[in-house]
C-alpha cells in the first residue's frame, strides 16, 4: 500500500473521529435543556479516541513507507512536512484529550489536521527536494522539534479561540446550542497553558538545533544572512511571544482574556512562518 493511500486512510479516520466528537456534542446538547452545561459525554464520543489513535498509527505507517520507498527524510517534500504537522496536531490533541477529555477541542483540531493532510496528499506527487542542507540527524531533529511544537501551539490556539467564544457568550448571557458543550473557561485556559508549556521547550530546541546546524557545520557564509531571513525572524518573533506568554503566566500569574490574545497573535505569527518569503530555507 502506498504512502498516499495510507495517508488517505488516516484522513478518513480523522474525519470519522471528528464526526464522532461532533455528534457526541450535538446529541448531548440536544438532549440537555436550555443553556446548561452538560456534565457527561455522549457514548458516541468514546469512539473518537480509538479512531484518532488508528489515524495516528496509519500516518506513522505512511511516513515509514514514504521514507523506505524514497530513501529520503519526510522533510524532503511538502507532503512529508504537512503529514508530520498533521500527525503532531493529532498527537497533541490525543494526549490532551486523554488527560482532560476535551471533545470540543477535537472538533476543531482534527479538521485542522485533516486540512494539513489533504494539502499534503495533493502534493504527494511533487518532485523530491535534493539538498545537502536537508541531510543529517540535526536537521531531522530540528524539523521534528519545530513541527511538534507547531502541533501543540495549534491546540493551544484552538483552546484560546474556544475560550474567547465561551467568554463572549457568558458575558452576553447567551449560552445555547452546541456551544453549551464547550469546556469551562478555566479548563480551556489551563489546557492552552499546558500545551504551550510543552511546546515552548520543543520550539526552543528546534531553533537551537537549526542554529547549530547552520553555524556549527559552517553552512552559513555570513550569520547575518540567516538572521535577516524573514522566515527566521518570524520564528524568533513567535518564540518571543510564547516566552512572554509563559513568563506572564508563571512570573506574574496572568490569566483570562488578555493572555488568550497573546496566544492567538502567536498562532497568526506561526502561520506567517509558512507564508513569508525566505532566503535561507529554500531547498529547490
Amino acid at each position, binding site marked *: 500500500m502506498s504512502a498516499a493511500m495510507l495517508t488517505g486512510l488516516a484522513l478518513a479516520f480523522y474525519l470519522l473521529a471528528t464526526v464522532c466528537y461532533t455528534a457526541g456534542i450535538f446529541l448531548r446538547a440536544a*438532549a*440537555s*435543556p*436550555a*443553556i*446548561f*452545561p452538560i*456534565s457527561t459525554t455522549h457514548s458516541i464520543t468514546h469512539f473518537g479516541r480509538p479512531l484518532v489513535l488508528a489515524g495516528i498509527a496509519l500516518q506513522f505507517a505512511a511516513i515509514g513507507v514514504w521514507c523506505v520507498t524514497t530513501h529520503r527524510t519526510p522533510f524532503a517534500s511538502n507532503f512529508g512536512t504537512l503529514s508530520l504537522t498533521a500527525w503532531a496536531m493529532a498527537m497533541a490533541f490525543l494526549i490532551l484529550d486523554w488527560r482532560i477529555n476535551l471533545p470540543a477541542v477535537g472538533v476543531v483540531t482534527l479538521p485542522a489536521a485533516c486540512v494539513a493532510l489533504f494539502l499534503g496528499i495533493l502534493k504527494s506527487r511533487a518532485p523530491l527536494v535534493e539538498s545537502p542542507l536537508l541531510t543529517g540527524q540535526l536537521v531531522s531533529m530540528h524539523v521534528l522539534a519545530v513541527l511538534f511544537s507547531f502541533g501543540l501551539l495549534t491546540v493551544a490556539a484552538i483552546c484560546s479561540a474556544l475560550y474567547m467564544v*465561551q467568554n463572549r457568550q*457568558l*458575558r452576553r*448571557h447567551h*449560552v445555547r446550542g452546541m456551544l453549551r458543550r*464547550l*469546556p*469551562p*473557561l*478555566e*479548563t480551556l485556559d*489551563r489546557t492552552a497553558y499546558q500545551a504551550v508549556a510543552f511546546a515552548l521547550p520543543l520550539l526552543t530546541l528546534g531553533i537551537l538545533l537549526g542554529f547549530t546546524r547552520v553555524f556549527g557545520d559552517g553552512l552559513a557564509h555570513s550569520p547575518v544572512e540567516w538572521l535577516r531571513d524573514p522566515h527566521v525572524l518570524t520564528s524568533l518573533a513567535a518564540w518571543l511571544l510564547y516566552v512572554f506568554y509563559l513568563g506572564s503566566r508563571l512570573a*506574574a*500569574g*496572568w*490569566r*483570562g*482574556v*488578555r*493572555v488568550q490574545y497573546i496566544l492567538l497573535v502567536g498562532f497568526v505569527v506561526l502561520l506567517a512562518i509558512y507564508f513569508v518569503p525566505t532566503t535561507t530555507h529554500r531547498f529547490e
Partner: protein
Amino acid sequence: MALILVGLSHHTAPIEVRERLSCSGHDLPDSLSDLASLPGFQEAVVLSTCNRLEIYAATANLKASEAYQAICQHLARFHHVPEPAFTPFLYKKSESDAIMHLLRVASGLDSLVLGEAQILGQVREALRAAQSASTAGSLLTALFQQAITSARRIQNETTLTRGAFSIGHAAVSLASQIFADLSRATVLILGAGKMSELTARHLQASGVRFIVVANRTYDRAKAMAQQLGGEAIHYDRFPERLTQADIVIASTAAPHPIIHRATLQPVLRRRRGKPLFLIDIAVPRDIAPDVYNLENVFLYNIDDLQAVVAEAARERASEASRAESIVCEEVEKFVIWYRGREAVPVIASLRERLEQIRQDDLAVLRARLSHLSEREWQAIETATRAMMNKVARTPILRLKQETEQQMALNGARYDLMSAAREIFGLGNETESLRTDEEDTTPAKQKITSSASSAVSSSTEVI
C-alpha cells in the same frame, strides 16, 4: 378487582386543606391498616406529599360509590376533619383514569414544578410503606412499579427532569461553565438572606467548600456561616475578600449598589485575570451595571438568572408532550396486563373442572380394573394427567393471548372467555368477577373502548 383513587392536590385544594389531611411518616402505617380493614378493600397505598394526598385502593365486590364513600369516611375519621371541609376538593378516579393519574404523578407531569424528580422518590416510598404494612398486593405493587418504570423511561428518553429550575440551579450551571472545579472555588456571600443561603447551598451541593459570609449584622453572618460551615466576616471587610473570592452572591437590603466599577478595578488588578462570577439577587441591585463591561467579570442579576430559568422551563414544557406519550404507552401496557388478570379465574376453573373429570373417571376405572398393579395405576395416572394437560394447554394459551390481543387492538369484550365459560360450564365460578365488572361498568368501558381512550384522563370532583 377494581382500582380506585381518591385524592386532592395543589390543583384542587388550598394549602390549608392539604395540611389538615397530610399524613406524616409515623401516621402512615395506621392509615394504611385502617384502609385495608375497610369492608371490600383488598389493597391500599397512600401517597402523601406537601402537594398532594392520594389514596389508591384495590377493592372487590364493592360498588365504586361505596368505595369512595368509605375512603371519605376514613379521611374524616383518621384526620379528625369533618367531611364537608375537604370533600369539595377531592377528585375520584377509577381504573384507567387512576392508572394514568399515577403514572403522570410519578413522572412529575402533575407536579407544581413540571418534571420535578423528587416525586418519584415519594412514589417509591409510598409503595415501600404499603409493602411494610402489608397493604400492597399484586395489583397495586404492579401499578406502582409500572409508574416508576414509566418515570424512569421519561427521565432517560426526554429532558423533562433535567436542567435548572431555580435561581440556585442556574447559578451552579453558570459557575460550572466558568470554573473547572467548584471545590476549589471560594464563595463570598454579601447579605445573610434566605435567597443567598439557598443559592449557596446549591453551590455547596456541587462541591463548593469555602464560603465566607458578610452581613451588616455580624451575628446573622455568624449564624449563616455556622449553618453553611463557612467563615463570618464583618461587613466592612468584604472589599478586601473580593480578591480571593471566585463567586460573589450579593443579596443585601441596601437601597443602592454596594459594588461599583471603581470597587472592582483594583481588585481585578490583584486578581490578574482570574474570572469573577457575580450573582446579584438583590432588588434593588447590589452591583452597579457598569461592572458588566469589566474584563473577566461575569455579572448575572436576578433578571438574567430568571431568564435562564425561564428558558429551561420553556424547553421542559415542550418535552412534556413527549413525556405524555410515553405515559400513554406505559398505561396501555399496564391496562393490557391488568385486564389479562381477569382470565386467571376462568383458567383456574377450567383446570379444576378437567381435574375433577379425570379424578371421577379414574375412580370408575379403579373399580372395574382392580387387578392392575400399583405400578400400572401410576402409569395410567401419568398418562391421563398428560392427556389433560395437552387438552387444556391450547385453550389456556388462547385465552391468555386473546385477552391481551383484544385489549391491545380494539378493547373488545372477551368473546373467547365467554365462549370458554359456555363450553366448559364455568359460569358460576366467575360470578364474583362479573358482579365486580358491573359495579364499575363506566370505568371499564373506558378502559376497553380503545387504546387511545385509555390515555384521556378525567377528573371528577365529588
